[in-house]
């Protein structure tokens, strides 16, 4: 019996020592990221049976255990991957937000200055300085479009770089997790199934960091290894095997760096929609939901401005009496064939100046199934089918420039993405600004009636636009028309104020003409003081042209600013809400797994005292043994 007291004392000493070591380890790792506090599990040793009952045999140290909750940890992971996605989206969109509404850096001031200059030309059409000012402010407008577009381009380049760096990180984490899987399996079997807590913490920390990059799903295997999946179920780590995530150019849009997955047969593109969460998810969302539409919206303002302005200028006449020429130049809709196409069709895009109002900020995908083309508007999924090209849709025209498409061929059409970048000033000679109208009206000097003719409006280009046309009244209610291109109708009924349209112009005659009265329409030669076309140009500023005739240029730009602002605002709110969710999840998880120094201090005292007490047990056992030895000495 008495011999047992030594082993009891020793088991107590060892147990207390284990407790002290663990408390010390906890204290040492209090600030280690991913560390889970540990506890020693004790049990009372198997007792020894005797006639007088079971005598205890001290304490057994069973294992050292992590205070780890799979549930709380996965809560933190999912909150963290969300929070990181929103944070990275928010930090990107903030840059755009700062750019667009800045009163000095946005498009607005340049647009206003330009139209002020147009008004200047309207006020003094034959003053060279006013015309020069209009050209200069057109240049300023062009460079403002450039600056904003360049900034968007910079953001796009930044996203591309970040996507690449994140892909690299993901691959690194995959390798490290696979490595730790291996070490954990080995360590566990070497220790007879005891958990290698600290290796497991390190692996969980890597999983947490991986989730900050992209949402990853964990499946725990029987041998303790983690299998990790990303995207729509692509394995990133399977046991000790790690896979590689890499980058590639989007086959439909070479300007986009996107995520690929290495398989033995080559790199496959991972659908961007499946890569949610984490920094990567945030970057991709930013690019698809904000950056592309933003660049399109800006480009649309540029494309619409250039087209409508040029169209009006072409209806005018410059200071030299020549027909008006384009002030702005604008590129064409960008059409990119997929690199996977097997046909050799080249699809050409062009703007449709007659339907500027139909332009959208969306991109389109054109697919060919062998007989029909299907054009999908990506913003809302609207699909239009047609068997032949060319086709006019949404303010642009698609035509087959060369070759032929094969079933399965796909093209990406981005009508307005290059609008802002390709917007340029085509005119250098101020005298070529068409401020005047090419025709003017006159009334016969021998007229005896009170008929008056309006100044006339040019609606369309016509080869006979400037042909002299004479309207001769044969009676107060009828007139004849003579002149090339009119078909010389006779006996036309006269209604005061009604439109009279020939050769691309429209005039109105009012009052009471007398028989024999004549009215003429002819070229506006020498009309240097005429500002009719300049007034119409200035009127474009407030004309509702875009969005099917509901928004002016400035209105469309304001809507774009409002969109960016609203998105930023939403992200600000959701990202801070998500940060709060993450904070709560982390607090709950830490409440379970985090180190409390006060608690460890108490444990230190507890195990110190236990150690001292066990020492006392040994001392008493020793004293007892001494007593026995002394018995022999006395006899």
């Amino acid at each position, binding site marked *: 019996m008495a011999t047992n007291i030594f082993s009891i004392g020793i088991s107590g000493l060892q147990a207390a020592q284990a407790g002290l070591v663990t408390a010390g380890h906890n204290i040492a790792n209090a600030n280690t990221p991913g560390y889970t506090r540990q506890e020693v599990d004790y049990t009372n040793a198997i007792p020894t049976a005797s006639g007088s009952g079971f005598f205890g045999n001290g304490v057994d140290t069973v294992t050292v255990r992590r205070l780890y909750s799979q549930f709380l940890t996965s809560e933190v992971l999912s909150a963290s991957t969300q929070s990181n996605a929103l944070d990275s989206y928010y930090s990107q969109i903030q840059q755009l937000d700062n750019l667009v509404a800045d009163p000095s850096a946005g498009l607005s001031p340049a647009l206003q200055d330009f139209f002020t200059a147009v008004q200047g030309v309207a*006020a003094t059409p034959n003053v060279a300085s006013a015309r020069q000012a209009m050209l200069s402010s057109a240049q300023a407008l062009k460079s403002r479009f450039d600056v904003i577009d360049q900034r968007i381009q910079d953001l796009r380049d930044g996203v591309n770089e970040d996507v690449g760096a994140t892909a690299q990180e993901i691959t690194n984490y995959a390798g490290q997790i696979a490595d730790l899987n291996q070490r954990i399996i080995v360590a566990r079997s070497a220790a007879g199934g005891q958990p290698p807590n600290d290796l497991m913490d390190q692996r969980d920390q890597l999983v947490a960091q991986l989730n900050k990059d992209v949402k990853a799903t964990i499946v725990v295997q029987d041998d303790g290894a983690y299998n990790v999946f990303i995207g729509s179920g692509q394995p990133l780590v399977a046991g000790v095997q790690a896979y590689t995530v890499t980058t590639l150019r989007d086959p439909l849009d070479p300007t986009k760096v996107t995520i690929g997955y290495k398989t033995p047969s080559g790199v496959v593109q991972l659908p961007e929609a499946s890569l949610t969460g984490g920094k990567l998810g945030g970057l991709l969302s930013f690019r698809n939901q904000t950056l592309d539409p933003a660049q399109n919206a800006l480009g649309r303002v540029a494309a619409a401005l250039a087209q409508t302005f040029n169209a009006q200028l072409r209806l005018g006449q410059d200071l030299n009496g020549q027909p008006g020429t384009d002030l702005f130049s604008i590129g064409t809709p960008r059409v990119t064939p997929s690199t996977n196409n097997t046909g050799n069709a080249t699809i050409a895009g062009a703007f449709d100046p007659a339907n500027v109002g139909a332009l959208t900020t969306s991109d389109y995908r054109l697919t060919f199934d062998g007989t029909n083309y299907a054009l999908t508007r990506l913003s809302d999924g609207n699909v239009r089918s047609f068997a032949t090209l060319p086709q006019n849709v949404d303010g642009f025209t698609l035509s087959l420039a060369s070759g032929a498409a094969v079933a399965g061929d796909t093209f990406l059409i981005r009508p307005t993405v290059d609008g802002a970048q390709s917007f340029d000033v085509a005119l250098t000679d101020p005298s070529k600004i068409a401020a005047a109208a090419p025709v003017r009206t006159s009334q016969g000097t021998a007229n005896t009636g009170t008929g008056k003719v309006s100044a006339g409006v040019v609606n369309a280009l016509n080869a006979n636009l400037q042909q002299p046309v004479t309207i001769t009244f044969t009676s107060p209610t009828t007139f004849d028309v003579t002149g090339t291109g009119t078909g010389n109708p006779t006996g036309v009924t006269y209604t005061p104020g009604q439109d009279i349209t020939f050769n691309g112009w429209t005039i109105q005659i009012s009052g009471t003409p007398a028989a024999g009265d004549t009215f003429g329409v002819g070229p506006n030669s020498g009309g240097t003081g005429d500002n009719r076309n300049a007034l119409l140009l200035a009127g474009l500023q407030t004309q509702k042209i875009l969005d099917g005739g509901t928004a002016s240029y400035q209105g469309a730009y304001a809507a774009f600013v409002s969109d960016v*602002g609203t998105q930023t605002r939403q992200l600000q709110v959701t990202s801070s809400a998500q940060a709060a969710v993450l*904070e709560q999840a982390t607090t709950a998880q830490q409440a379970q797994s*985090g180190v409390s120094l*006060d608690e460890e201090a108490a444990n230190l005292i507890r195990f110190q005292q236990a150690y001292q007490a066990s020492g006392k047990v040994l001392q008493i056992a020793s004293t007892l043994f001494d007593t026995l030895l002394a018995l022999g000495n006395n006899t």
Partner: protein
Amino acid sequence: MRIATNTIYNLSVSSINRQQADLLKTQQQISANRRVLTASDDPVAASRVLEISQADAINTQYGVNAQTASGRLAQTESTLGRIGDLLQAVRQNAVTAGNGSFTASDRASVAQDVQAMYDELLSVANSTDGEGNYLFSGFQTDVTPFAPSAAGVQYLGDDGQRLVQVASGRQIAVSESGADVFMRVRASNGTFTVSAPPANTGSAVYTQGTVTDPTAITGHQYQIVFTVTGTGTTAVTTYDVNDVTAGTTVATAQPYTSGGAIAFDGMSLQVQGAPASGDVVQIDPSKDQDIFKTISKLVTALQGAADDPASNARLQNSLNDAIANLDQALDSVNSVRAGVGTRMRETDDLQSSSDDLSVQYKQNISNLQDLDYAKAVSDLVQQQNNLQAAQKTFLQTAQLSIFNFL
């Protein structure tokens, strides 16, 4: 609940971070004096500000345009005033020249005066604005509008009126076509003209006539042909009225009394004096006769008149024609001038309403994006207090540890 030591630090730090961010935001707002620093601060306000600032810029531009228009109109107005004065002076001379006691040389000197006024009128009609643009040449501002030629003064300008946008939906004409002012002036009473061919030998003087019934006006050419039967005291003068256009006779062998009204087809005129047999008074629908022609005809009439009854009658008729035509010209100039004056007043009104509107717009923009200073400063103080409290309590909480007692 169990609290991990790190949680105490992390929560405190993130709370302090948040409060510092709020404080910084308020500080930025105060230093920029704007509530809306970026579009995300208030997306609706940000886009409204863009729209209103465009409206404000356009409004300012309209104000500038109205000022330009006002200046141009003022110039046109004063030029028209000068033209009116000249016409008035010519008319005065025409009246004076009708004085029966005037001799041919008197009339010749009047003719000289009138010729000088004619020259001045031509130069005023060709006047330019400050930028060298001709006032009355329509769209062709570089073309001298009125050019003398053998056939009289030619108008080389056009009917164009230059417009200035002074409000949304309102374009105001700032130039007048020279044709309207100088060329398109209806002769005589505006409806028909009365004339006597130079072949007349009698001393009949006609009046310009009046329209008595506008609905009966045919627009035809008529001739009143006088016939004198008998001689001396038994002479009887009758007249026929022929509708030349229709080839019909309106009245035959009507007895003629000097100064009596001759009325037909809605027209009435008087003939005075003694027409010779076969003398004709012709009536034509009124056509435009330019002011220069009116005056040059007056000069010619004044220069060429001899002192016999037929010549006197011709001179009298010419002077009557000239006075009637000058009245028409004055009417024409005055009505154009009145139009210009109305538009000047409109531009003045528009300028002041544009100023008012501008204040409104600026107020709107300010309401949308500017900072409520008092509120911002009070927010700042509150946020400072909150931050200080968080910092203090963090320090105190962090100091609590059992290790302090070990």
